[in-house]
């Protein structure tokens, strides 16, 4: 799941030059996270109306990053024809897919934070840093790229105080890696020298 959060409303409004707006929500991650589902779209509509914008329509499509064609979206949402701009309440992936095929100005309403998931009804953030060379098996299944604030591959930075990361208010990723490897009886993985990442692997090469 892609983790996003809503932009400050005033930041959205500041950039929104057009008057006639169509709002698109997303039925997947953004709905689950309560940042781009129906209630949030309606809330956004209300706020924009108060700010004197004209909302020509809205829809929560099943998945903003996975659409068949723009023609299909248009045929299901004819009101878009009356819009000067779209406001998309989805992650950056969804915004990019939509604005890539829509032929009008498109604005993001969310900020995309990280790649995470849900487990036991809890949202877990920053589970993967999209490095394109997955090595979690060596780290007890805990991604060192995203769970360590410095993406260190050969051990902790030494900056944690009482188990808390020196950077963010969260446990030191390397403590988690150690505890998990201990549990799995795989502590010997810690001794392996890990070479620097090959950054040609993180996606861009295949486009």
């Amino acid at each position, binding site marked *: 799941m892609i983790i996003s959060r809503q932009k400050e409303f005033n930041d959205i409004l500041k950039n929104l030059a057009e008057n006639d707006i169509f709002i698109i929500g997303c039925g997947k991650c953004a709905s689950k996270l309560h940042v781009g589902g129906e209630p949030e779209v309606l809330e956004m509509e209300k706020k924009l109306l108060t700010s004197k914008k004209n909302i020509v329509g809205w829809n929560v499509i099943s998945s903003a990053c996975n659409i068949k064609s723009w023609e299909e979206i248009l045929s299901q949402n004819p009101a878009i024809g009356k819009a000067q701009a779209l406001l998309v309440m989805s992650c950056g992936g969804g915004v990019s897919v939509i604005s890539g095929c829509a032929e009008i100005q498109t604005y993001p309403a969310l900020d995309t934070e990280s790649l995470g998931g849900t487990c036991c009804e809890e949202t877990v953030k920053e589970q993967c840093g999209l490095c394109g060379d997955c090595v979690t098996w060596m780290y007890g299944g805990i991604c060192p790229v995203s769970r360590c604030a*410095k993406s260190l591959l*050969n051990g902790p930075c030494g900056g944690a105080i009482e188990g808390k990361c020196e950077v963010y208010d969260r446990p030191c990723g390397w403590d988690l*890696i150690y505890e998990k490897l201990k549990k799995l009886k795989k502590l010997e993985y*810690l*001794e392996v020298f890990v070479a620097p990442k090959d950054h040609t692997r993180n996606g861009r090469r295949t486009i």
Partner: protein
Amino acid sequence: MSFRDKLLSGDFIVTAEISPPKGTDKKPLLNEAARLKGVADAINITDNQRAIMRMSPSAACSILQDNGYETIMHITCRDRNRLSLQSELLGACGMGIRNILVMTGDHPSKGDHEGAKPVYDLDSVQLLELVRKLNSGYDFSGNRLEGRTDFTAGAVSNTRLDYVSLIKLKKKIKSGASFFQTQAIFEADSLSDFIDKIDEAGPKRPKVIVGIMPLRSEKNALFLNKNIAGIKVPDKIIKRMREANDPASEGIEIAADLVRELKSLCDGVHIMPVKDHENTKKILEMAGIR
């Protein structure tokens, strides 16, 4: 005697740390260095320490070397990717810098440019490996260099190590760290475990230069305990600071006592005062070193 020779000689080593100027004025740097003339065997120059932007350490080292000081250039993984790290190291070597201290580096969010992109393209172990490669005449990608580097590389460590940190320490030794400069300690007893671990390295045993930070007040000690990873000022030292009539002198005395004790326990000391080196010479004299 060069710092490298000194490491090999087995003599007790003294290093001291200076931050480069925040600006282009060389005077504060040279004034601080002057306080260390004949006192420190080499001067450590920090690399945007605590992520606070300052003059580049290679430039500051070069200025000091031109004025007759030997330096240890800090190089962190925070601000440069592998291209930039290498060109910085080639440049440093070209300017006559021979000693470097490799470390991960405090995160930008700790400093005065919070929004800066944290780089960490390499970690400290990988950077030590890279230095080894440059020393052997090749770059990261295996291209031959016109002139190899000639660095003595050291690394940093806390003296109290948990399981993972100990493994990382061993990796650093394997990757060529020939000396360690440690986080500040305040009682000699806390060192013996660490030295035992270092001794296990056998013939590759790196030298241990222990961090000394003269305390200025009780408040200073409490702050360090709360905010600086790897530092533990013991209660009895905090009590001494609290009860002292003149806390700053007490801090100097504590540091001097510690240095005296450390002479037989480790290979050297590294003085890193909170403010400046006004009292560094005095501490070493009181400890019977200079």
